[in-house]
């Protein structure tokens, strides 16, 4: 029952969102090697702790919200837009430690 802070709509219940996927990945260049593409399409890290992921505000403004979620506590550490650098900002500010 986590709450996601949509940059457009404010804090909303996760029931309004649809999990989209891993936000730590970057789509490779079209001419990248097949191994690189295979890694992008099929392989995922499964970290215990902070994890970047996309949740779409599907029953709201439809934004793809970037969420930094601690997989061990389900605590949402930060939310932002896809272009935002959540992890780096949070680590610099020391929020990760506080959040855990």
């Amino acid at each position, binding site marked *: *029952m986590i709450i996601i802070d949509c940059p457009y709509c404010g804090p909303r219940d996760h029931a309004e969102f649809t999990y989209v996927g891993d936000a730590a990945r970057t789509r490779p260049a079209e001419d990248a090697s097949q191994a690189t593409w295979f890694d992008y*399409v099929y392989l995922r890290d499964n970290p215990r702790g902070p994890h970047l992921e996309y949740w*779409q505000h599907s029953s709201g403004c439809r934004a793809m919200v970037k969420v930094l979620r601690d997989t061990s506590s389900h605590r949402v550490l930060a939310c932002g837009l896809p272009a935002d650098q959540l992890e780096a900002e949070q680590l610099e500010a020391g929020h990760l430690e506080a959040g855990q």
Partner: protein
Amino acid sequence: MSAQDRRLPQGGEVDRSTPMRFRFDDRDYQGLAGDTLASALLANDVRLVGRSFKYHRPRGIFSAGPEEPNALVELRTGARIEPNTRATTIELYDGLEAASQHRWPSLRWDVGEVNNLVSDFLPAGFYYKTFMGWPGWMFWEHFIRKAAGMGRGTLDPDPDSYDKMNAHCDVLVIGGGPAGLSAALVAGRSGARVILVEETDGFGGRLRGERETIDDKPARHWVASTLAELDGMGDVTLLRRTTAFGRYDGNVVAALERRADHLAEPPEHISRQRLWTIRARRIVLAAGGIERHIAFADNDRPGVMLAGAARTYLNRFAVQVGKIATVFANNDDGYRTALDLAAGGVEINAIVDPREHGGTWRQKAETAGIDVFAGAVVSRAHGRLGLVGVDVRDASGKNRFLASDLLAVSGGWNPNVHLTCHLGAKPVWDNALATFLPGDTGPDMRVAGSARGLAGLGTCITDGYAQARAALDDLGYSKSALPDVPVTDEPQEEPVQALWQVPGKGMRFVDYQDDVKVSDIALANREGYQSVEHLKRYTTLGMGTDQGKTANVIGLAVLAEERGLPIDKVGTTTFRPPYTPVTFGAFVGRETGLHYQPLRRSAMHDWHVANGATFVNAGHWLRPQYYLRDGESDVKADIDRAITREVTETRGGGGIVDVSTLGKIDLQGPDTAELLNRLYINGWKTLAVGKARYGLMLREDGHVWDDGTTSRLGENHYFMTTTTANAGPVMSHIEYALQVLWPDLDVKAVSVTEHWAAMAIAGPKSREALAAVLDDVDVSNDALPFMGVVECTLAGIPARVFRISFSGELAYEINVAADCGEAAWEHVMRTGAPLGILPYGTEAMGIMRIEKGHVAGPELDGRTTPADLGLGRMVSSKKPFLGAPMLTREGLTDTDRPSLVGLVPVDGKSRPRAGAVLIADPKAVPPVDKLGHVTSSAYLSPNLDHPIALGLLEGGMAREGETVWAAFPLRDEMIEVRVTGPVFLDPDGERMHG
């Protein structure tokens, strides 16, 4: 009707002026308003209320609360019957009916009791050892369930309704006892938004069953004045009959409010229960404690009861649960019980206390003339259907028999840590208190009062103040003066002395509900099940509906003794939601029947209903499957006739089908063509305004995902259609692409599926019909060629007309605003009537698309490539697109991959079934190599006069003319089919291009 022999003439919270009739096991009784079923039964001296699960031992009421392991009954009758209901929590209402469980033919004479005599053969792990091998459990389960009994449910629909509530608060206080009330008071006075939930029908917690005083007045005065103040606060919500049963992420607590369970049935317009989802900024858990018992021989005899429960029945319900009582306690709370019972007219034999030394409480008891057997234990209970006496073993090992009809047992108190465990915190053992205390609950939950092991009324009230104050400090509420600490009369308590079991022969029960004995735990340990988690599963300790509320700690302690380790080295007990059972109805709420999920109807739905349509579910949509005419009914012959008619007349003249369910996406912006180029495998830069194009999308892994047509309506304006099934996912996919993958693309995308009603007119007469339908539009082949698009009006209604075809006929799709859908459809039907235009459904549509060899959902199954579907020539080599990099993988370009073919039964009449496996040799012995499978099947092609099918076959069209076999072993079908091209009708497309 029997008298309430055990009821005292005065005292308690019961209302003697409001008698309540009730029935238990076909006998009529009378109780009072304010009773529980348990207290009413005890008032009538009903001691035997159930049989145990495994050995069918006679059992009586053991507790006075939700922890009850024995007194589980079937409550109510008919559609409202509810098994495994705890008699100790059922509020009595007039006309209540309940029955005991686990007994046949009667409670007193039960054939299953033979299990008791052969108990040596039913040790721990018996079920595993005996039944778990194949065919084991599957075979035995039926017989075991019948003999064991879990109460009876009902197959009737639930006649009651259930609601869901959502609430937010600053401070949620769980438990309306002394600590909870005082916490709520402090939080309320500070101005915070407060919710206080209390499981029972009234506030006060244990005080309801005590004789204690606060400020020299009966404690109920303090409860009443506190409650009155809370009631007067605007931002305080008091929820009675509400159990907080689970704590979840985000500091969410789920609670069940029983609005009508204390009544015979819910009043009109009142839901039976409400499921609350409470989001709290801070939680104060004041859930109190649960008393535990002690394992000695035959400690399950009816009449052996938790000491605090005996006190509650006396003080709150004015019921003497015994005439002559023995108290067996290793702590001072047992003395309180003895003194209260004595004051209530019960003769006290003795207090049996394993502790050598006593303190203030022992002096009080001795002053009151009660014998104390220090250093002694109760070693056995006597009386099969009801207690007649106990053996007391003194320090020297000598036994003496004490005639008693009540044994009040107290092995100490366990803080009710249940909700502290739900997010994974483990309780922590405290050696001095001989109990588990709450583990680390994090900053969002604070535990107050006896729920964290505190003793004494004044201490608990003060702690309630303090925990609320701390929570308010976290939230930044300004400090206000704490209420005065009330004056309580509490003698100093001596420490508890841990005592889990008394050595001796006979059955010494640890877990009553699951019939787990000390010997079972010892056996599990000997057989190597030493971890707590293994022990639980092997012996079923704590696995009943009570989750071992009275049993787990004793079980753990016994295991520790067996292993010779301290308890904290053996492990810990933990709890999962729900705290007490929750009926499914509460989780379901109003989402039953048609409310289970949204139902989508097209704008033309009412017309379809009025014109004989039978509907089929397509996702959430209802789509016409076929239309029956007057004189036809929903039987196979008529249905076949209707479908054949729709196909034949559409191909011979004209038909119209509702295609509103297709996904529709409006795309605008200068980079739209570039976006389409990246989403589809084919090129889009050359599409002219006023033209449509068929497109195919892949997933990133290179497999085909969705198809549809996209039209260019203006310089920077496109209109995309998707399959019905993928309308939502494709929209999200585009949003992901625009927001995450390519935010530099200047495109706006909006789902307009519901904005447009859509219908397709197909057949050789469709052009003639269209000309009549539209307002002065040139629909000639030159003006509106294949894949042409025109914006126009139809009976004055703005419309878009697309010349596209799914059926393979000359066909047009008309889109109008949804609220004009029905008018437009009726206009088409009226205007088209002279031409014989008839409506057709999804069945006819399916047959026609198979005849035409058009791929659809069964072929786009997530495992096929464009080449597999015969669409390899669409793949552009001139541009990158989503899925392109992975499409070139070795496995996806293998020419032996199954690819699309047509299949025709050799005998001209057998019907190959969709899903049938294609094999080479019908006589081959399994395992047989699979060559492919049948994807879609038209049981009869009216145009070809025989069944046809599409399939994916290894080698594909290279096998044209060969025969293979379509095997469907589940139905024992083996059909020889000839491989043909997938386009059965008009392969050159003369019809749709004409």
